[in-house]
């Protein structure tokens, strides 16, 4: 430490100049920042690491405090979860429900968001955003009445419909702020060149909106994949999604912690892999509208 202090020439830290964009921060602050950020990252990551580690332990090792970090890893828990409990079926259920509800929501949500952004239909936008505000249970009760009488409970249709309800407001919200920040000159230019309004939307605006569509689509997939409440009530034995399947794990008297953690890893890892590769889109989606106020 002393050497670095000695080798730094005094002239290198001039008095602040007005136009300098960034100022040299004091060393103490730099150290504080590194420590604080490391702690933050550790706090956010450690529990997830712990979940993963526990999924590699036998139940005996989980109960043994001396084997907190030093143990013989085993894949038995994964074998147990994936082999015996029809988890592949649940994974496929989750996947299809999330994918289809996302696609259908994009199809009806994107044009709506476009119209709302283009024609500043604030009142209509509020109707769609109400879907985000209303607690899911208050819709679930009447849905359950209606769909039980139509004998649809336990089918995929009702699951996709209910998950569209999660996806649609999200997609409309993200796409409104995306279209709001997109210049429309190109589209107007295309209309001068002879395209109709709808033609210009389909051929110019939509292709230009691919990043926005990706953002909305990925986020809606994630939220649908993670959703628990709707599937808990509306799914049947064959249409259970992963979160519901995991929840059913704990209804037994004693918990098989190893397998439970393996199941938790199975549901979390796909979504995290998607998140890692698409983090740019996720961040822009989550922060959509945050800066406009």
């Amino acid at each position, binding site marked *: 430490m002393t050497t670095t202090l000695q080798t730094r020439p005094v002239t290198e830290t001039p008095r602040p100049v007005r136009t300098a964009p960034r100022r040299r921060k004091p060393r103490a602050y730099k150290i504080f920042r590194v420590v604080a950020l490391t702690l933050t990252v550790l706090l956010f990551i450690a529990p997830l690491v712990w979940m993963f580690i526990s999924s590699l332990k036998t139940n005996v090792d*989980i109960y043994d405090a001396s084997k907190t970090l030093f143990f013989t890893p085993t894949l038995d828990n994964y074998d147990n979860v994936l082999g015996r409990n029809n988890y592949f079926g649940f994974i496929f259920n989750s996947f299809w429900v999330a994918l289809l509800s996302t696609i259908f929501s994009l199809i009806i949500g994107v044009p709506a968001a476009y119209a709302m952004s283009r024609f500043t239909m604030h009142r209509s936008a509020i109707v769609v955003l109400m879907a985000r505000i209303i607690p899911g249970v208050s819709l679930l009760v009447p849905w359950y009445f209606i769909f039980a009488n139509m004998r649809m409970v336990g089918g995929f249709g009702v699951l996709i419909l209910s998950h569209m309800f999660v996806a649609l407001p999200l997609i409309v919200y993200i796409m409104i702020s995306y279209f709001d920040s997109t210049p429309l000159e190109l589209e107007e230019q295309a209309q001068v060149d002879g395209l109709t309004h709808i033609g210009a939307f389909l051929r110019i605006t939509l292709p230009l909106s691919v990043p926005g569509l990706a953002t909305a689509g990925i986020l809606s997939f994630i939220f649908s994949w993670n959703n628990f409440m709707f599937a808990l009530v509306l799914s049947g034995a064959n249409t259970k999604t992963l979160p519901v399947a995991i929840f059913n794990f704990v209804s037994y008297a004693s918990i098989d912690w190893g397998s439970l953690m393996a199941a938790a890893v199975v549901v979390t890892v796909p979504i995290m892999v998607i998140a890692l590769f698409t983090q740019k889109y996720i961040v822009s989606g989550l922060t959509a509208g945050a800066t406009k106020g």
Partner: protein
Amino acid sequence: MTTMVTTTPSMWRNYSTWANRNRKWLFASPAMIFVGLLIAVPLGWTLYLSVTDSEGSVRAKSNLVGLSNYFEVLTDTDRFWPAVMRTFVFTGGSLAIELILGMCIALLLWRPFRGEKWVRVAILLPLVATPVAVGMMWRLIFDPNIGFANQVLSWIGIPAQPWLSGQYTALPTLMFVDIWQWTPMVVLMLLAGLTSLSDEPDEAARIDGANSWQRFWFVTLPLMRATVIVTIVLRGIDALKTFDLLYATKGKGGGSFHEVETLNIYAFGLSFDYNDYGIASTVLILFFLLIIAIMWVLTYRRKANRS
């Protein structure tokens, strides 16, 4: 046939002109009809159920009972009002800590540094993790006998805590989990707001000799007001509706003493664990009115501030 050939293009042109002229409603209506059908009809039905004694099965006969459900719920100091209180404690407490913590972390991340990308990845992971899996993960960590949390406490000589299983510790513990999972969201939103600020007011304050705390408190924070309010609204809505985490960790009724029973858990339990649809609908209508009232206050104040 010739007439067909001659009329079809013009018909198509007519449709096309019509479609282009009415594209505003053509584009917006599918989504609005969908949301309308799935909101308006269910809300109407919930309102209807709230004045009936519907119970047991969805096909059972029910009778109109007027407003007696509302009297019953509003005078219920056993389950309803404690649930309202827990909802406020959970939402308000978590939100306040998330905002303060989130602002600190956002300020740390504000100026570019090496390894920035990795920090961002790290704070993204809790956000996308499945809430039910997160609940299970913390159940293991907070297990009174084998959990890592008590292990850490034993290293520094603090006696083991019941955490999730305690009557008075469960709600704070779950607030902690909520803070763990959603502070990153607050960080991202505030960071987006911070990075969109222009440097000039900060520079001007610096030249006037303001120290970093004064610059934050008198310059940055006022400029961030809109972002902070948007963050409060969005995070607040979701926190009020928290279900996955509470139900996954504590199950029906929010535990044996109803220690984490918020309005959402209470209403869900009444509906699907006890099939008491009439009372459940009443609770839901009141819950809905409460949320609308909160939203109205927040957005009304925002408009008032703006003008």
